[in-house]
């Protein structure tokens, strides 16, 4: 039984995880832009510099490729670095190191050099910070073999994924949905490390499987609540891990509900939702009562103005409408 917890924010849950990791393993250190004196662009690492000192909470210059590469080298050299990239769009500057080095060393070296590196970054839109700070590129990273891609959408995962990722021998990327940092809820006091292999059924249901991750999970849950008031019973799945993808959970669910909708803040073309949809088609085609559908972000760079940005992102009412149509209870 989980002990009853106290109110906590998502960012505090990540901070708890960082603190615990630093306390448990002296090889762990945090490195990134403004993680120390500033306290983290999203105040995640606030107070950690004072607690652990500048040797372990390292402010880096603005050189994503450089400091991610340093993280790789430090991991090869026996440390357990956590590298924070301020936002997903900036990670493009480090894509060379992530894709050409971190993801390939083990394979190119014939199994000799694994890279136990954790990279955390903020992702997602909805905050009116326009086309260079708002995208959801986790699906793109999920294309790359050799890395693991995590999308904590709950307080438990924000708290629990980091330690498991640090124990993993290979590079793990954790995408923290920036819109969730202020999310507040109850976290059990004895909550701790969680698995990083499996998706999770967040709400059981029988009429349709709604698959979401990261920032779209709460929207899917809200929609499911509204729909249940109308007699439609959604099974909501939090993917949690985009690579390696746990297909069993959603395939089993689809075999039960016979309908599926994926809600993905990534762009539709070549997205993780395209992958999920294809796997359902490959593994559960004859179970389906209707085509798999997707709600994704509009295929535009994120606009600044609020109404345009909201129009670009998946929304609760769109999920509700689409589910009604699929389940065919709305005529």
């Amino acid at each position, binding site marked *: 039984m989980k002990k009853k917890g106290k109110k906590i924010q998502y960012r505090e849950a990540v901070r708890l995880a960082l603190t615990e990791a630093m306390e448990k393993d002296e090889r762990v250190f945090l490195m990134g832009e403004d993680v120390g004196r500033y306290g983290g662009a999203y105040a995640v690492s606030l107070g950690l510099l004072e607690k652990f000192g500048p040797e372990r909470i390292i402010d880096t210059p603005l050189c994503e490729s*450089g*400091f991610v590469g340093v993280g790789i080298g430090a991991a090869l*050299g026996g440390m357990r670095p956590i590298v924070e990239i301020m936002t997903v769009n900036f990670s493009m500057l480090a894509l060379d190191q992530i894709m050409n080095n971190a993801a390939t060393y083990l394979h*190119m070296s014939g199994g000799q050099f694994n890279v136990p590196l954790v990279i955390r970054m903020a992702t997602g839109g909805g905050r009116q910070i326009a086309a260079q700070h708002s995208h959801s590129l986790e699906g793109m990273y999920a294309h790359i073999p050799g890395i693991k891609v995590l999308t904590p959408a709950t307080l438990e995962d924000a708290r629990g994924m980091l330690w498991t990722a640090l124990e993993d021998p290979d590079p793990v990327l954790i995408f923290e949905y920036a819109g969730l940092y202020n999310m507040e809820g109850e976290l059990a006091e004895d909550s701790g490390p969680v698995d990083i292999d499996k998706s999770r059924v967040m709400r059981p249901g029988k009429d349709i499987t709604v698959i979401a991750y990261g920032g779209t999970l709460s929207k899917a849950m809200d929609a499911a609540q509204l729909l249940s008031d109308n007699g439609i019973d959604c099974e909501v799945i939090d993917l949690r891990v985009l690579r390696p993808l746990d297909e069993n959970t959603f395939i089993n669910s689809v075999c039960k509900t016979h309908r599926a909708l994926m809600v993905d803040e990534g762009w539709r073309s070549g997205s993780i939702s395209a992958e999920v949809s294809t796997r359902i088609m490959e593994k559960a085609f004859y179970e389906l009562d209707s085509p798999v559908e997707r709600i994704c972000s509009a295929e535009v760079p994120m606009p600044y103005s609020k109404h345009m940005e909201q129009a670009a992102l998946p929304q609760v009412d769109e999920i509700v409408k689409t589910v009604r149509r699929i389940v065919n209870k709305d005529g």
Partner: protein
Amino acid sequence: MSRKKAKTVDKKNSSGKKEIKSAESKHFQHLFHQMLRIRQFEEKAAELYGEMKIRGFLHLYIGEEAVATGVTEVLSPDDNLVATYREHGYALLRGIPAGTIMAEMYGKKEGCCLGRGGSMHLFDSKTRLFGGNAIVGGGLPVAVGLALADKMQGNKRITCCIFGDGAVAEGEFHESMNLASLWHLPVLFICENNYYAMGTALRFTHAVTDLAGRAVAYNVKSSYVDGMEVRAVEEAVKNAAGIVRKERAPYFLECRTYRFRAHSMFDSDRYRTREEIEEWKKKDPVVNFRQFVLDNGYADGKDLGNIEKDVQDEIDEAVAFAESGTWEDVEDLTKHVYSEKNLK
């Protein structure tokens, strides 16, 4: 160092002089041996490429042997080495058996990376060779990270990072120099300036062609050396590595050298003149050093003949080893994408 000390003895008596000569002879013969190993290995690789035994990209080091020889001579076995895609010589001199390297280039299971890496990606955990990186500049931040790990753990080793003149134009070079200097990390940056970034000359790619001079911008000590002269390289690396070890800070050494062969086996070498290549060949590090050793009595024809035979035997054995190698099971294709071992 020991030779300098010996020189004072030298003035006192002639038996001391003999000792020095004998120590120098041994050392110079060794340097020649090492350079020749690279030269012959590369010549053989080119031949095998022609026979289609080796495929893909093959970047030969012929002409640049004095650099790898001088560098590896100075490094300790415990030091880290991060290299480029033109790294066969480093792999060989760091102690990976020639046969294991050749087998890797054949794509055989007996290769140092099971044939998964090939010519450009030679890795070896035993000799602390962290690749064979074929993204120009890509190894530099990794080298800085290795040095950071050593600093954090209180290890005494240094990290040596090899890259070319092309990498100096990459952002990762500048990021890495800044980080290594800012955090006082023991990285020995060795730039093999062969004057061409693939097929485009240094003068067309760098606003400032004095590469060693660029280190000033990062408060990193630097110098350059004639990379065609093995003794000069060895001395320069000894000095540079000494500073890195003592000051636990980075050093940038530019070795000015030249590749006699094309960039890779696909390169038709249209971007430089025959005359230029011939002019540089007059500085052939292997041929000239051989002559120096003979002219100064550090070895006779018989000594060198023995070395040449040793090298020939080593290469023959390497080829035989690669030839008799086996292919990894296709069933194992998806191995080594993720670790099987569990870290704790």
